[in-house]
């Protein structure tokens, strides 16, 4: 078991290194950072000074080593636009994104799984067909379009909820939270629904597919033959058996919720990391782009590692074959 953990950790470090190379080459080697850093009217002496200061005259692999060294010290460069360290900038925006993503994921789980189990239990009932039709909508309609419709209906036409921004926040543990104030919570509702819709549809479909297959299985037949009530069959046997794939997908989707927040945050002017990266791409703020990509990669690798390790603990077969 320890060998497996060490192996997976080494793999994660390797992937992280590979990603840092790709990100570095992608962002720094394509296009010329000198053109962005130095105004065209600068004279030769200033050009030379700036190039030496950022080490842009070094060969690419030396530049990468400098970049990697800074990275290991937690220095991801300074934003061209805000002129503060990018790490501070991104971490400052992170609570807003996490708050939004968690609200969305919790809402999607609490609604999606019961709907999916019902749709799988009674696949031919009219309500099940309605649920599945709705899930296809949620699954396939682009997030940004749903966001627009939500704004149009609930903010512009009905005027019930605000169309954007974060509203009032409360300081807790040194960061601001919207959910803890009435005004802030009203601001969370629309973006959270928008972000939750895709996960909701996904969880509904997963739960339905799992339940449908489980209902045909022998253990359900035996449980029924034993004389268990239907609620017990569903709650004790079906739910337990469909939970493993759902937990996996749920874990992986947590990360992608943060990624999808890019779109939702842009539409609802939610001041999180996603809006920051879109703004940075538009104004070519390269250090922020690099830092965001490195942090997101790190987040994903950590999530994958956690899922793998939990799996290995649950399933001894996987442990043996993976350690091969």
């Amino acid at each position, binding site marked *: 078991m320890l060998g497996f953990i060490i192996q997976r950790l080494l793999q994660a470090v390797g*992937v992280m290194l590979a990603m840092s190379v790709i990100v570095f080459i*992608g*962002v720094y080697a*394509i296009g010329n950072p000198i053109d962005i850093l130095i105004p065209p009217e600068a004279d030769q002496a200033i050009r030379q000074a700036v190039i030496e200061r950022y080490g842009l005259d070094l060969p690419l692999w030396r530049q990468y080593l400098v970049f990697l060294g800074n990275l290991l010290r937690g220095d991801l460069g300074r934003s061209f636009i805000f002129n503060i360290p990018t790490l501070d900038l991104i971490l400052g925006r992170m609570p807003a994104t996490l708050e939004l993503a968690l609200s969305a994921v919790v809402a999607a789980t609490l609604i999606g799984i019961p709907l999916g189990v019902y749709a799988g239990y009674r696949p031919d009932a009219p309500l099940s067909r309605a649920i599945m039709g709705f899930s*296809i*909508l949620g*699954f*396939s*309609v*682009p*997030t*940004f*379009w749903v966001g*627009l*419709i939500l*704004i*149009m209906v609930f903010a*512009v036409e009905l005027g019930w909820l605000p*169309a954007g921004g974060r509203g009032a926040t409360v300081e807790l543990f040194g960061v601001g939270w919207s959910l803890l104030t009435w005004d802030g919570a009203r601001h969370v509702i629309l973006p959270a629904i928008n972000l939750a819709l895709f996960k909701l549809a996904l969880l509904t479909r997963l739960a339905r597919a799992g339940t*449908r*297959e489980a209902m*045909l299985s022998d253990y359900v037949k035996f449980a029924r033959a034993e004389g268990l009530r239907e609620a017990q069959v569903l709650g004790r046997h079906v739910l337990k058996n469909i939970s493993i794939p759902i937990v996996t997908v749920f874990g*992986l989707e947590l*990360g*992608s919720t943060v*990624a*999808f927040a*890019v*779109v939702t945050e*842009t539409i609802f002017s939610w001041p999180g990391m996603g809006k920051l*990266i*879109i703004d940075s*791409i*538009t104004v070519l703020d390269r250090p922020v*782009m690099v830092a965001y*990509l490195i942090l*997101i*990669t790190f987040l*994903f690798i950590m*999530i*994958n590692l956690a899922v793998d390790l939990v799996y290995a603990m649950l399933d001894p077969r996987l442990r043996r074959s993976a350690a091969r």
Partner: protein
Amino acid sequence: MSAIGRDALAVPTRERRPLAAFWIEFAENKVALAALAVVVVFVLAALFAPLIAPQDPYDLGKLSLLDARRTPGAVASGGYVHILGTDAAGRDLFSAILYGLRISIQIGLLAGACALALGATFGIVAAYRGGRLEAFIMRLVDLQLSFPPILLALVLVALLGQGRGQLVAALTAAQYAYFARTAHGAASAERRKDYIEAALATPLPGWRIVFKHLLPNCLPPLIVVATVQVAYSIALEATLSFLGLGLPITEPSLGMLIANGFQYMMSGRYWISLYPGVALMVLIVAINLVGDQVRDQLNPRLKR
């Protein structure tokens, strides 16, 4: 006993005309049939857009700012009814949607086809060759699958710049992994079957076994993935264009039409964003409904 007898009779007819049997089963689902009809209508509308549209939305000489932001059903200086209204530049929205549909469908099909070709090649070659190459390719694919495609496409478009080729490249890179995973799964199962062993025993070259024997037998699951991925490409392209990172302004796809109307939505001029969005939504949902039905028909686990 009689049940077995009926099955035994049914199997040969199904095997003789597999496509016809497939179609009959498909047509039994009225929703899927309607969705297929919608897809066909949309593709035809996009194909013949210049013949159907009352106005060429890119002919700047025919546009007049006096006609800007007319409500649906209004008659402007052109003398005909703008059934879906006009946008901020005085463009007939119905025409703009038809031309936008053209661009969106083109990009979706192109990106889907490129991703299919790349992913299927990767997956099947990995399954055929095995060993270190297989381990390397599939590790790469798994790694990419754990990364959300929208983020990958976003970054690639930001790095490569705007343009049709760049966009297709970004969408392909973001999606090929799904095809590679599916192709690898199917090809690994086929690889162990007798007919491949028999082909390997003959002096046929490797590429022939891959393309003539393995590929055709891996196609069914790939077709299912392809329908879903084309719909996803269209949605992804619209999202990127909406964020201002997709196609250049000279090629207004549906996503850009929606983005252009967004700023007028707050002042109650909803139609500029709404109708391109409805067109996009109907198209994507219809493709997914068709794909869903095909997948259910091809899934052996639901056949009991």
